[in-house]
Structure formats: C-alpha cells, structure tokens
C-alpha cells in the first residue's frame, strides 16, 4: 500500500480520486489480491474506461469504490469523492451519497432489478430515499426519467414489471433508476455485455448523451475495446489486479506502451488496415492467490527479460504527463512494429 503519488489528479477535489486502492480476499487457498495499488482519477464530465480480461480486478475496483465488497474481502487505500474519503465514511454518510451523488449500474439488468416491484415504483424508491418529493411529484419525475432514457409509452410502462421489459429496455430502466437524483458520477459495470450489439450501441449513445446533458462523470468497466474506443476519454488497462497502462484513449490505441495492451489491441479486428491474422495473447491470466514473481505478465510476454522475473515494474509516467505505464521495456514495446 505505497500510494507514492502525492500529485492530485488533473481535477483537484472536484471528482473522484482513488489512491492505493487495494482489495484482498482471505480465501482458503491464501490471500487473493484482487486489486492492488489502484490509482484512478475521474474529472467532472469525463468518461474513463477500465479495461481487462475477466478476473483482472476491474469489477472489484468498482465494487470497492461503492463499498460493496463483502467478507472475507478487505479494502484499503483512499477513495476521495469531492474531498471526502469514502473508505473511512460511516454507513449513514455513505447512504446519503450513494444513489444521489454516485450511482451504479450493473451488467445483468434482469438480476439487478427487483422482480416483484413495478419499474415506476423502483424509480420512485430512489426518490423516496433522497428527495423530499411527494407522491405526485415522484410519479412525474419517474415519467420524465423514463422519457430521458428513451423508453416508449412511458406512462403505461411505469406500472409494468421487469420481466415485461426486453433486455435493452431493462438496462434503460436500470439507468433511469440510477439517474433519478441526477448523480455526478455513474459507475457502470459492463453495462452492455449482456445486450445485443445494436442495443449495446444505443445504450452507449444514451450514456454519452446523458453525460453531456447532466455533466456527470462515468467510469465504464468493460472487456470490450470497441466500447472503449467509442465512448471513453481516458482509459486504464488492468492486469492481475494492477493498472498496467493508463492514458487517453487516442494515445493508447495509437501506440500501446505495455505488451499486454498491445496484445489486447492485436486481438481485435480493425477496419481500414490491411488484412492480417488476429493475434491472441498466449497463456491464461495468473491465479490471484499465486501471482508470478516480478511482473505478473512476464510468463505471457514476448518482451520479457531477466529483470521482469525479479522486479515488479512501477506505474510510471512516460512522455506526456497523463500517460503512465508499468513496464521495464515500454520503449521497445512502443517502438515495436505497430500491430499489423
């Protein structure tokens, strides 16, 4: 837990600043480090993507920020939201912020909606918890939210149950609930993974549109690089619980400095380039209870040398201030022939 960086993010106190976030689970097979030393800044109005394979710690990071990690999990580090530390905060204070200033949407909208309450009532639940609105005003606001997220025939659908909604409409309803009190930060845990590609596109457009209209920040967890390219301003790539590379989306896509990022980008087809074979990353992600020594990525890395087995590279700034990477050989990676 050596949160070495004293530099306040690009945003000062206005947004979310995570420093040295470490989440561990005490399992029977040993201590699993699900997220280690995660630093993350989210400025107002910014969309930040958190990318990685399954088990890389991106969802855990999000859940740690929301204090959703259960026993035997343990969270340490600092999570500052507008100057207040969410880790140290009491349950009572936290409840006041959750749902009103910070909201979250989940991957699978069917299970994240209460099956026995009508959608309208679920939107109103949030208003009851955080606003002094009366029943009539709540209903009006619920209707307004349904229109904002683009659910047709909102008046009738307010009284319908989640199972009467299609997948895309459920995710819209989930977003409507999350937006009820106009949050300043939306944490989205793979919000489009369970949806068709066409619906996925609509939902992402909706999120971007809402970001503009409500000037809220979004943290988007995904394993889909296409989603990141289409929506995010900045991104952080996670591997085995650590952020290995972070920077603006344009920079990272143009010239990855970490071999894992390079591998990820090489594994998705791109238009506008000559036809080549897709590259896959050899091997599988390591077990979190038994991480490799040194750089966790070295067993799968074609750039690895002796030092990678012995020491873990720190996340350090490369040329532009905002760009950071955790690799001893980032110059070589960056200089390597663009991935085909």
């Amino acid at each position: 837990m050596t949160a070495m960086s004293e530099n306040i993010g690009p945003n000062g106190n206005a947004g979310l600043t995570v420093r040295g976030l470490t989440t561990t689970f005490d399992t029977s097979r040993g201590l699993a480090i699900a997220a280690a030393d995660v630093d993350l800044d989210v400025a107002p109005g910014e969309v930040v993507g958190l990318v990685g394979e399954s088990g890389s710690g991106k969802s855990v990071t999000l859940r740690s920020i929301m204090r959703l990690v259960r026993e035997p999990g343990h969270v340490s580090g600092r999570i500052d939201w507008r100057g207040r530390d969410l880790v140290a905060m009491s349950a009572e204070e936290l409840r006041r912020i959750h749902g009103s200033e910070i909201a979250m949407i989940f991957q699978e909208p069917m299970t994240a909606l209460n099956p026995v309450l009508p959608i309208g009532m679920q939107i109103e639940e949030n208003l009851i918890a955080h606003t002094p609105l009366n029943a009539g005003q709540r209903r009006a606001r619920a209707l307004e939210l349904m229109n904002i997220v683009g659910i047709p025939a909102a008046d009738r659908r307010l009284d319908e149950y989640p199972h009467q909604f299609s997948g895309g409409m459920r995710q819209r309803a989930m977003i409507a609930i999350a937006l009820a009190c106009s949050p300043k930060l939306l944490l989205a845990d793979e919000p489009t993974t369970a949806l068709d590609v066409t619906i996925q596109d609509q939902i992402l457009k909706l999120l971007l549109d809402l970001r503009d209209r409500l000037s809220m920040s979004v943290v988007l967890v995904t394993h889909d690089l296409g989603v990141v390219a289409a929506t995010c301003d900045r991104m952080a790539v996670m591997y085995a619980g650590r952020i290995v590379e972070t920077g603006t989306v344009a920079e990272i896509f143009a010239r990855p400095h970490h071999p894992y990022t390079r591998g990820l980008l090489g594994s998705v087809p791109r238009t506008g380039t000559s036809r080549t074979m897709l590259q896959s990353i050899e091997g599988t992600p390591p077990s979190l209870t038994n991480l490799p020594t040194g750089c966790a990525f070295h067993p799968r890395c074609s750039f690895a040398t002796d030092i990678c087995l012995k020491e873990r590279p720190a996340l350090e700034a490369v040329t532009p201030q905002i760009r950071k990477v955790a690799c001893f050989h980032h110059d070589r990676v960056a200089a390597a022939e663009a991935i085909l």
Partner: protein
Amino acid sequence: MSTVRAAAISAFRLKALPRSLVSGGIILGLSLIVAIWPSLFAPYDPITFDYNALLAPPSWAHPFGTDSFGRDVLSRVIHAYTINMQIAIFATIGPFVFGTIVGAFVGYAGGIWEAIFGRIVDATITFPFLVLVIAIVSVLGPGLGNMYIAVGVVGWVFYARLVAAEIKVQKRLDYADAGRVMGYTPLRIVFRHLLPNAITPAIVYWMTDMALAILLGSSLGYLGLGAQPPAAEWGVQIADGKNFMNTAWWISVFPGVAIVLTGLGFSLAGDGIAELLRVRR
C-alpha cells in the same frame, strides 16, 4: 413465457389461475361463509338437548343423526366451523407475522444473530410439536386463548427459518446490491425489496399450517385441552362420539369429514399459491 406471467399477474381472470387455487379457494370461501353465519345453515340449535331423539341415526329430520344428548350432529358440525376456522387463522397469523419479521432480520444480519437463532431452532424442533404445545397448555390451563399462545410460542420458529433461508439467498443477488448502492437503509432493503421476493415459501407453508392448526385444535379439543364442551368443535365432537363408535358412528365420522374437507381446502390453496408465485418468477 412472459405472456403466461403477465396473465397471472395482470388479473384475477379465473382461467389464468391454477386449478388447485380455484378449487381450494371455493372450499375455503364456502367454509368462511358458513363460519361467519352458521345459524343461516344449521337446522337446529347446536347445544339444545332433545331427549326424544337420543343417538338417532341419519334421517331426513337429522341428516347427520344426533348424539347421546339428542343434539343435531349436522348443526354442531356447522357451528363448529366458527371455532375451527378461528383456530386456523388465529393460531397461525401470529407465528406467521412474527416469524417472518424475525426471519428477515436474522437472514439479513447473519453472523452472531444467525448463530443464536440456530440454537433456538434446534432447541424447539428437538421436541415433538404436539408434545410441546400440550405441555404449554397444561401449564397455562385449557382453553382456546392459551392454545393460541402455546402454538404461537412454538410455531414462529418454522416461519422464521423459511424466511431467513430465503433472505440469505436474496441478499446476495444483484438487485440487493443495487439497493445498497442507491443508498437505501437496511430496513428498507429488507422489508420492501427482499421480503416480497422471499416470502413465497412462508405463505405456502402458512396454508399448510392452517390445515395443521385445525388438526391440532381438534386434537387438543379431543384431549379436553382446547375448546371446552358444550361448545361445538370438531375435536370435541369426535371425543363425544368415541364411546359410541360401534353403535352411533355418525357422531364422530361427520366432524372428521369436515376436518378432512377443510384441510383439503387449505392444502389445495397452498399448492395453488405456490404454483401462481412460481409462474411469476
């Protein structure tokens, strides 16, 4: 699939309801009507003696015969509906409500509370239910009021166990987390969000329990610990007839049939509700 669900929820269209619920509902509805206005249906007064018709077999004048005091068995069976339906409801509603609340709390809180609750459950289910109730009634004294207390003291445990188990499942689901990240209080999450999803088994068990309560009430009545003679109650009536089984079977058999019929009504209703709520999920 959603059309089936929609139909089940959207209304009380008889076709969409499970057949067992409809038939159970009809039996219980009729039982309740009889229980509320017994004198509309009973041809005689249930406790008036008629020394001209002692132990009379079933006839047009007395379709169910008469007992050893010349009381009309049909009228007594009908009037007993009042007491027996009361037993079914009053002996179970307290345990249902209290057990559900305790179960919801224990299931959500977990930890030490769950451990303590587990020991209480163990201690209670170690004793046979009937023996425990008889022991409590014999301490408090016979009568219906004390019987409700005795059943309540023991019965809530079963509801609490069902609800606690279900809440433990529900609190791990995404929508519970969603409630937490919306900043809802634990009380709100448990009672407004989790409980409606967790209460189904308790409601189904409640139906069965009402049938069991009628049996239990009759057992205690039979033993002289429940409703007291000369009140008309099925267990009391069966006890009245036990010495005449060879000569006047009708005194005991017709109240027995009433018990079976009412029990059937509750069981069918319970099955029907289970089916209805299963479809909804």
